[in-house]
């Protein structure tokens, strides 16, 4: 792997940019691996990278049915934050934010992590109570989060409409300054490049059709479109298709898959300095470095694998954006798309060992998995390497749905996650 540096940029600029080589090889599957990771999104590639770097396990394959980073990693609105209510969640998401901080340097790849602040708007008394409770809980957990008056919110984000005559007036806001955005493709590419440099095989366009178990019940490998691949350990990080795959291993999961949509506007000059979320009118928005407004919509009410989503949601979302930011009411939208998200009953992920020996899972991130990318990869790698969960992901078991020890962020977060 050629390291990127000012010197390498200059050298290639002087030689007509002809010296760049491919960043990772297009690997062909071998017959056997120590670890097979299903799903080459940010989470899966991150796990492969940390397995190689921190645990010395390099005989690893990451297998994806499409191209790497082409699933939810490339379909989200790139928001990073950690202002979750419960102790377990605060630790989990703040662990990820800690890793985001140094990720570009660590990977020698600019993931464009921008701490521009995430501001969540309160529109009614319930919102105020709920956000202030979050702020206090966050501060006790060492997670930054602060309360803003409507005037302060307007100073932080000038396009915001704080008129008391608005249909849903802004009564205040919670601001996490350490939160922000990153470039989603670069995260997948950075991890892929760094993992491949350490000997990890990244196998694209190769659907995994089933997980195979031996007579003793332990995992023996995966069936793929290019034949059987033997593996001592299999980690599934397949988002919306996790439950389909787990069915083949004889495991029924507490997951439901929904389409989640997002859309972008035509690119405009910089006009929006931060990320704003409103759970009550259900709108969230930021501006990408290319200039597009990136707008997150909601999940459809019905389960689906269609990767499209219904138009009524887009209509609803755009109406909410125009309500909160009248400045955008003549903005034209460029395109919309959907991704399939796997949602757990308590809206917290499942990250850990499964009852099947040698099988691990990282799923259930629902509508908010991107922010956790480095943390999820790091913790999945730890769990696979040591065959035991890290203290941070220990509460996020599958067994919690039997014991009742739920981490109920669904009740805590209301709508947006």
């Amino acid at each position, binding site marked *: 792997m050629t390291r990127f540096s000012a010197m390498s940029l200059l050298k290639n600029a002087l030689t007509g940019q002809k010296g760049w080589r491919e960043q990772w090889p297009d690997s062909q599957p071998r017959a056997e691996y120590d670890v097979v990771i299903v799903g080459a999104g940010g989470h899966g590639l991150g796990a492969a990278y940390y397995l190689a770097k921190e645990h010395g396990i390099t005989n690893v394959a990451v297998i994806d049915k499409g191209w790497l980073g082409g699933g939810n990693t490339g379909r989200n609105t790139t928001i990073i934050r950690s202002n979750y209510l419960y102790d377990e969640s605060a630790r989990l998401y703040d662990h990820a934010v800690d890793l985001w901080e140094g990720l570009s340097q660590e990977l020698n790849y600019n993931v464009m992590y921008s701490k521009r602040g995430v501001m969540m708007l309160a529109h009614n008394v319930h919102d105020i109570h709920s956000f202030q409770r979050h702020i206090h809980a966050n501060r006790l957990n060492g997670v930054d989060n602060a309360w803003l008056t409507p005037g302060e919110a307007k100073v932080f984000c000038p396009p915001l409409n704080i008129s008391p005559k608005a249909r849903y007036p802004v009564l205040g806001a919670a601001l996490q300054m350490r939160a922000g955005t990153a470039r989603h493709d670069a995260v997948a590419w950075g991890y892929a490049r760094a993992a491949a440099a350490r000997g990890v095989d990244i196998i694209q366009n190769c659907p995994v059709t089933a997980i195979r178990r031996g007579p003793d019940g332990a995992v023996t490998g995966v069936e793929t479109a290019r034949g059987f691949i033997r593996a001592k350990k299999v980690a599934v990080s397949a988002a919306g*298709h996790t*439950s*389909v795959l787990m069915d083949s291993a004889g495991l*029924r*999961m*507490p*997951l*439901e*898959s929904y389409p989640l949509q997002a859309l972008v506007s035509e690119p405009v000059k910089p006009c929006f300095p931060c990320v704003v979320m409103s759970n009550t009118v259900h709108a969230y928005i930021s501006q990408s470095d290319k200039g597009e407004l990136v707008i997150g919509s909601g999940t459809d*009410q*019905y*389960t*689906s*694998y*269609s990767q*499209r989503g*219904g*138009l*009524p949601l887009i209509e609803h979302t755009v109406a909410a954006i125009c309500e909160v930011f009248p400045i955008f009411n003549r903005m034209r939208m460029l395109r919309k798309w959907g991704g399939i998200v796997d949602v757990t*009953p308590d809206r917290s992920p499942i990250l850990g060992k499964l009852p099947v020996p040698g099988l691990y899972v990282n799923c259930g991130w629902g509508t908010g998995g991107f922010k956790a990318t480095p943390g999820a990869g790091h913790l999945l790698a730890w769990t696979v390497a040591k065959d035991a969960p890290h203290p941070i992901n220990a509460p996020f078991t599958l067994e919690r*749905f*039997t*014991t*009742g020890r739920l981490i109920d962020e669904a009740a805590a977060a209301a709508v947006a996650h």
Partner: protein
Amino acid sequence: MLLIHCPYCDETLPEAEFAYAGEAHIARPADPMATSDEEWRDYLFIRTNARGPHYERWRHVHGCGRFFNALRDTVSDRFLMTYKAGVPRPDLPATEDAQ
């Protein structure tokens, strides 16, 4: 927008009139005191999450207000049939090629 046939109103109407109500044909355990933790888990949390034909409940909230069941393909989002609540689960239509 999906078009959904309400078996009570006998009309095909836009999705906005309906509310999704989860997987169909899940029966509450008959004797709660004798139900194990695993059985409660299966009843409360475990879902088929089918990729393909999926039996599910809908409610015609902005119409007759009644619950009914539907069979919908979750890959194409096409409704294969809708039927009244209480009707036993019908078999998959034979003509539908499995996804």
